[in-house]
């Protein structure tokens, strides 16, 4: 077990001074080199959970541990890939990827080697001297991933990394991510809205619900990759989770009105 989340609760105080329970009694573990997804509707606390894991915030109660050590602050051991890329606009592709390596005082020759390796791994050869504003969304996200991987973190935290991309690019990036992850295994904690994305990529999926933010269930995705979306078992899993989430977000009536076919599959 590499990541250990124990009895974590988080209270946010709104601007009006009202306390809001963002997370309540969250418990789970993540194994080394596991691809672990967190799905849930807006407001379920998944981004808060990721922030706690990254060390941007501290829990109100409970503990988050990585490799046995409590998380107290952000660091390269838990590198983050953000939804809006968060690339430094004043640095080129190469300079962005080198950023973490320079903070780690990695020797120059080693820096160059690692940068070259990750540039080709994410498929950005030829774009090394471009600035982020000259790149497309998909390319920016690839730089973001390369930048996070370059520091060799113990965990890769990804906060809805493909949500800002169009569907074609999104699906392509999912395949690319799987390829990269299978080439260089790493523990990944992946936050997403999309059940299909989670099922396609993950070993296990934590399903969260809002008000208060909590982990309802953790499902194991037992199929070998690449996952066949027409496989009846896969379809059933997806339908179950989607139906459950629809109920969470829109109420039982909406769940009842879900198409008969969906319900029959889920049943």
């Amino acid at each position, binding site marked *: 077990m590499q990541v250990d989340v124990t009895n974590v609760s988080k209270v946010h105080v709104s601007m009006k001074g009202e306390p809001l329970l963002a997370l309540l009694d969250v418990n789970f573990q993540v194994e080394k080199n596991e691809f672990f997804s967190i799905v849930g509707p807006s407001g379920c606390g998944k981004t808060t959970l990721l922030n706690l894991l990254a060390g941007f915030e501290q829990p109100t109660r409970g503990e988050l541990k990585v490799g046995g050590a409590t998380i107290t602050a952000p660091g*390269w051991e838990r590198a983050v890939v*953000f939804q809006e890329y*968060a690339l*430094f*606009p*004043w640095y080129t592709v190469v300079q962005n990827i080198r950023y973490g390596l320079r*903070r780690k005082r990695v020797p120059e020759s080693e820096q160059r080697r690692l940068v070259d390796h990750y540039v080709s791994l994410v498929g950005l050869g030829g774009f090394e001297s471009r600035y*982020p504003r000259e790149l497309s969304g998909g390319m920016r996200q690839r730089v973001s991933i390369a*930048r996070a991987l370059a520091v060799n973190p113990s965990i890769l935290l990804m906060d809805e990394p493909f949500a800002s991309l169009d569907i074609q690019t999104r699906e392509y990036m999912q395949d690319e991510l799987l390829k990269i992850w299978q080439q260089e295994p790493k523990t990944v904690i992946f936050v997403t809205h999309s059940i299909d994305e989670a099922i396609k990529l993950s070993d296990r999926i934590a399903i969260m619900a809002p008000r208060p933010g909590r982990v309802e269930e953790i499902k194991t995705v037992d199929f070998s990759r690449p996952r066949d979306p027409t496989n009846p078992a896969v379809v059933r899993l997806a339908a179950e989770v989607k139906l459950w989430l629809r109920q969470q977000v829109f109420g039982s009536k909406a769940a009842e009105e879900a198409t008969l076919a969906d319900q029959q599959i889920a049943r």
Partner: protein
Amino acid sequence: MSEAGPRAIPPPLPEVRARQACEEESRVAVDAPVRATAERRVPIAPEALARLAASMVPPPPPAWRRALARISRLWLLVAFVLVWELVSIFGQRINPQLDVMMPPPTAVFSAAADLMSRGVLFTHIFDSLYRVLLAVGAATVLGVPLGLAMGWSPRFRIAVDPLLEFIRPIPPLAWIPLSILWFGIGDVQIVYIIFLAAFFPIVLNSLAGARDVDPYLVRAGLSLGARPRELFLTVVLPAALPHIFTGMRVGLGIGWMALVAGELVAAPSGLGYLINNARTLFRSDYILLGMVLIGVLGLVLDYLMRQAARLAMPWHKGQ
């Protein structure tokens, strides 16, 4: 051969047979491997694409035509100057005193030649420029770090703000009497006034720059192992640069105005001095020359500042 009795199953109708054949086909198709439905067209090379696009639009006008168009934009200014010149020439016939009240534009050139031959024109220009550059330079060196620190650290801002906001509303010109008392009349005193004028825009803009750094960029830096000092130098400072340059531009503009005002009141040399001194001599052509020079130099300085900003921030899209 089947027995065709009354109860025998009739052979399938032609439509039914057709449908069954279709279903057979699609069942086979599902098992077949998936292929892209259309072959990908051979992509057109970028150079060929560019040529194709160019061939579809009318060619741009020749260079001389474009230069002419740019110059023709100045027609109103030229007309203004011409009218002014004509009014001056004919007006003088009616009222000889017009020469002193409102000299013609050509007087500017004769005044310039006059002062140049006496060797003082460039002295005045140089003195004014020297003062403003020194003062704005000092205001930048002191104001940018102060502003950045205030923008980044709320605690620091709260501590410094009351003092700053107490001094800021006092116009730089109101400082002139005190500054003369302190420094006497001369370069130091004028530089001080310009410094005060340029300082506050620089501080406030730098403050805004540090305060408005995208928090995701800060988080990205932290998640890649940046310590506070590194974070400040590699994230906050570059992120704030556009604001800093805006502050410097504004500071330069206001500083330039304070220079002229300061030199008008008390100075041994400079463009402001030139204007004021010319007034006492009733040399309105010198006054006009001074004003034109002040305007032109102000424009040039601003232009140079914008170019400096462009060079310092190659990633930033335009101002």
